[in-house]
């Protein structure tokens, strides 16, 4: 797969724009999926996924052909998603440390019984609930959870995509899991 992609990229580098169509065809679904889980909205996801492919095309000259193309592409996509999320930033974060405590975050302050109003709305599909809960995660946890559990990437690859030390990725996955557990335990 990577071999085909690299061949196509070399063609694109030579100015053959049509060769890029196959690259989009191969990764379109994955990139769209990441964006959808990150943003929780089909329309926005499509928008950002397209933008990611556009950016990749424009900057294809800066791609190191010896590296994995998918990692590079996912990185562009996740960065764009994070930018988009930040633009509609809420003014508080659940994972902000509570003043005067050591490592305690807002998550520990949420009473578990009151955190799931969606239980009332039984008509809502479970899928939507899960997606909404993922969307509630702060972006740094959301990214790793999406890459790990939806794209099923290895911790090493996630560390490369996000350009973060492996230890940081692990910590974020642990915290992300705990946060989601709090949100989803009563589903």
């Amino acid at each position, binding site marked *: 797969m990577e071999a085909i992609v690299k061949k196509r990229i070399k063609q694109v580098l030579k100015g053959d724009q049509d060769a890029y*169509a196959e690259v989009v065809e191969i990764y379109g679904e994955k990139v769209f999926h990441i964006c959808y889980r990150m943003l929780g909205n089909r329309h926005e996801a499509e928008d950002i996924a*397209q933008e990611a492919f556009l950016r990749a*095309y*424009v900057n294809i000259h800066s791609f190191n052909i010896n590296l994995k193309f998918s990692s590079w592409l996912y990185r562009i996509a996740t960065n764009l998603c994070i930018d988009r999320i930040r633009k509609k930033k809420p003014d508080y974060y659940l994972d902000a440390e509570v003043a005067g405590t050591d490592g305690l975050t807002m998550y520990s302050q949420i009473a578990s019984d009151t955190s799931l109003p969606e239980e009332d709305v039984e008509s809502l599909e479970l899928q939507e609930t*899960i997606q909404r809960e*993922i969307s509630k995660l702060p972006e740094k946890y959301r990214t790793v959870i999406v890459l790990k559990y939806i794209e099923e990437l290895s911790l090493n690859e996630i560390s490369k995509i996000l350009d973060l030390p492996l230890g940081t990725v692990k910590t974020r996955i642990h915290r992300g*899991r705990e946060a*989601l*557990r709090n949100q989803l*335990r009563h589903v």
Partner: protein
Amino acid sequence: MKCPAEIIIYMHEYLDEEISAKNEQELRTHLQSCKECQTHFHELRKTIALVQSTSHINVPSDFTAKVMAKLPKEKRKVGFQRWVRHHPLLTAASLFIMLMAGSLFSSWEQDHEFSVSKQPNLIVQNDTVIVPKGEVIKGDVTVKNGKIQIEGQVEGNVTVINGEKYLASAGQVTGEIKEVNAIFDWLWYHIKKTATEVVNIFDHEEPEAAK
């Protein structure tokens, strides 16, 4: 019951499949005895299962087409610039040829005046050059934008550019007779002349270099 803090860490190590055999044993032993941690662990696994259960959503069918439509058009200019960057030698060569051709064309433009190589016994009447009967012209004769009428003898080549030649039955040319009319013939003539000159330069230089 207060559980050891590392139990939660072990749970995550377990979920990342990075737990050591010793820690896994410790985790298992603890989970068997602690209801609270059991629930916690169960909830974590359930969370993961829920997240992974999210159904696959299909990408819009026209996604690729939309992306391709958005790509910047491969501009001629960009392609040209890239080509120039990648082929500096060819660029230099083609630039040289372009300038050369330019100067040739401009000299074609300027060359519309009548001219003839100067030999003492040539007769010029208006735009006709006459090689008189019985005369012997030594050397090459070149006529530009005029006619030549050969009644005598020319010991050399005759070249007529943009004109006509009449060779009388008594006339004689020892060398070649060339007529150049169309611009491409003219160009070819120029190129051959330049090449001959270049060869001549080398021919002259070689003996000197041999010294």
